[in-house]
């Protein structure tokens, strides 16, 4: 066990931070133009701090994978305050999937523009009737000449209103067993027959959309993987999604913010931090935040060594989302009556972020596999407990 960086990696971290700081004038601010944002992304790719391990022929930097380097890059953005590389479902989910199962033509066509931010993607997986049981999806695509023709509805499509393209699961073989009848299609959001309706959530904002398909025609060559292979293709993608949730750095930053809040706010002249009960809750959560942080170090080491993370990895989403939700709850309670304010209220603190997080995090606990599904996974894959027997009747 040695938490110090090797000389190589220490130098690398200095190099990244030096680069970021020396290009400070190019950082796109909150009111940056699209051109400025894309220029920064291009700069990061050419320096190797975005799309680092994507092969050069597809528009990436082409470095050999080094998880620690990737981590150091991520930390350098936080340390310097530099705007990070573009993220989004295209870069985080579609690109790895195409790299794994796309045709050479698909890779050359889609990966480069996606990495550069020229194409924004959205994901068409969930449906109103298919949440936890995603494989039961019913949006159909039937063959017609050289096209698939899609009819049905998707939901929870987060960037649908901004996206240029969608990667989408549709049922192409309605008579096959449910996991074998699904195909993975990619198509333009400008295709006739697509309607996007914003879906307002409890936060008061429309973080998601519903997408309706009426006779949407997609050329057959825009399938990724073979017909009926969509479930396997999507699982490639879902595996990449898992890693996105439950970031221990975020929890640590939240904890610090709450600690600062508790030092600043007073109730009846007493600082909140001087209330032993609030302090106790803060300390309890600090214990959990540190635990998840150190667990993250363990997982990082396992990744570096190419070992399977096992149980310690399976629990990250369940514990991480819950912890973030509890942190938001503490912040609200620490604010007390001030903590119920929202939107544009006078006396509002931090833009109402704690209430927003408290609600949004509940969505994260539910999304991407509810806590109940996570517990099934931990029990079955992590502990080897048997699945539920299949019921007699459907």
């Amino acid at each position: 066990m040695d938490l110090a960086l090797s000389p190589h990696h220490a130098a690398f971290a200095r190099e990244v931070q030096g680069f970021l700081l020396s290009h400070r004038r190019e950082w796109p601010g909150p009111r940056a133009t699209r051109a400025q944002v894309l220029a920064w992304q291009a700069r990061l790719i050419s320096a190797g701090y975005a799309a680092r391990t994507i092969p050069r022929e597809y528009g990436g930097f082409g470095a050999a994978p080094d998880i620690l380097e990737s981590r150091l890059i991520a930390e350098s953005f936080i340390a310097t305050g530099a705007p990070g590389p573009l993220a989004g479902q295209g870069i985080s989910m579609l690109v790895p999937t195409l790299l794994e199962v796309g045709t050479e033509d698909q890779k050359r066509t889609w990966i480069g523009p996606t990495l550069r931010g020229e194409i924004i993607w959205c994901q068409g997986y969930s449906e109103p009737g298919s949440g936890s049981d995603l494989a039961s999806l019913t949006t159909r695509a039937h063959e017609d000449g050289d096209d698939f023709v899609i009819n049905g509805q998707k939901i929870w499509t987060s960037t649908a209103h901004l996206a240029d393209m969608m990667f989408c699961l549709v049922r192409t073989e309605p008579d096959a067993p449910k996991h074998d009848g699904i195909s993975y299609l990619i198509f333009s959001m400008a295709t006739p027959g697509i309607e996007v309706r914003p879906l307002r959530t409890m936060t008061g904002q429309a973080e998601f959309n519903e997408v309706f398909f009426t006779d949407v025609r997609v050329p057959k060559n825009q399938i990724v993987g073979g017909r009926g292979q969509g479930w396997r293709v999507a699982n490639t993608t879902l595996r990449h999604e898992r890693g996105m949730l439950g970031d221990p750095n975020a929890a640590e930053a939240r904890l610090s913010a709450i600690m600062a809040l508790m030092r600043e706010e007073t109730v009846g002249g007493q600082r909140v931090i001087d209330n032993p009960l609030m302090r106790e809750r803060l300390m309890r959560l600090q214990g959990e935040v540190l635990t998840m942080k150190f667990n993250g170090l363990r997982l990082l080491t396992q990744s570096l060594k190419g070992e399977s993370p096992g149980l310690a990895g399976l629990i990250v989403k369940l514990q991480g989302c819950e912890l973030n939700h509890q942190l938001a709850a503490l912040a609200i309670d620490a604010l007390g009556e001030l903590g119920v304010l929202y939107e544009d209220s006078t006396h509002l603190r931090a833009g109402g972020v704690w209430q927003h997080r408290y609600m949004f995090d509940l969505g994260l606990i539910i999304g991407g596999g509810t806590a109940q599904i996570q517990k099934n996974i931990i029990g079955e894959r992590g502990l080897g407990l048997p699945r539920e027997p299949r019921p007699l009747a459907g």
Partner: protein
Amino acid sequence: MDFALSENQRLWQASLAGLLNRSAPLERVRAFAEGDAAVARDVWRALAEAGASGLLIPETYGGLGLGLLEAVLTAEALGQTAAPAPFLGTSLAALALASADSQTQERWLPRLASGEATAGLAVSEAVAGARDGAGVSFTARRLRGRSLFAIDAEGADLLIVADQTGRIHLVETGAAGLSISPLTSIDRTRNLSEIIFEGVDGRPLDDDGGTALSRLRDAAWVLLAADMLGASQTLLDKAVAYAKERRQFGRVIGSFQAVKHLCAEMAASLEPCRALVWYAAYAWDRIPQESSLVAAHAKAHLSEVSRFVARTSTEVHGGIGITDLLGLHFGFKRVGLDRQLLGGPERVRDHAARLQGLVD
């Protein structure tokens, strides 16, 4: 020995449920949350016709002359439907007016009873501690300062105001030097304001060492607890209904033990709270020596249970639970507000400990 609702109380519940289903169905609640102020007026008119506005006002002043238990049933019904109405402020004003002189009573009680006037409550600083330098002083017969988180004050005719020493004042909203501005909270069905007093004429009720304020605070805690009870019951009912209807993996999800047990845990936590809230109201009406402790526990315990129920009901609903579609979030936010109003659970439990001489 009879710890149950009377026939009349059950009829009252049923008539409230009926009138709120008519005047405040989900789409009307949503319309109000989006700015249609007429909804709250309609709800209040319907409630006033049924007598809810004068529930706690003596019959001689045109009220029903009932007790806090009936008020609790009303608050519960409002929580259940997330209906907007100035019930809390107006009811507490009626209680405060009980110690006013008869002239003041004659002036206000009939108008409150008829629903023609409503009242707000500005006691947060005295009850839950001052925030952001708020607080209302009373010197030379003038009220000065600010009060935050005033309940039902916007649009009200009368305010009940606590000053820094715990005396209660009646202030008419037309008084010179008074300004009321809304605060926006997560719960768009509720009426929360900041009030600024710039030398407003004060009229203190008896200087009784805080007894009137304590009684008012206890009643408010019990009514907030009842609101949480009602909202949580709806959250539970909706989760159970959804679990019976929603199918995944070829089964209704309520047949999965995980979902069933979430529902069972909600019910197991929530169901006994009904007795707690009833008892708290009964004690306020009939056993004053027990009342303050039970009121505190009702407020604190319902705050904890309803946070759990709100979160768990949303989880049982899955994705649809976090959308606006089923309106589940109205209950979620309602209990979120109730939890903090007039003191969060830690603060209220500390009060319970003080009442029992457990704090040095």
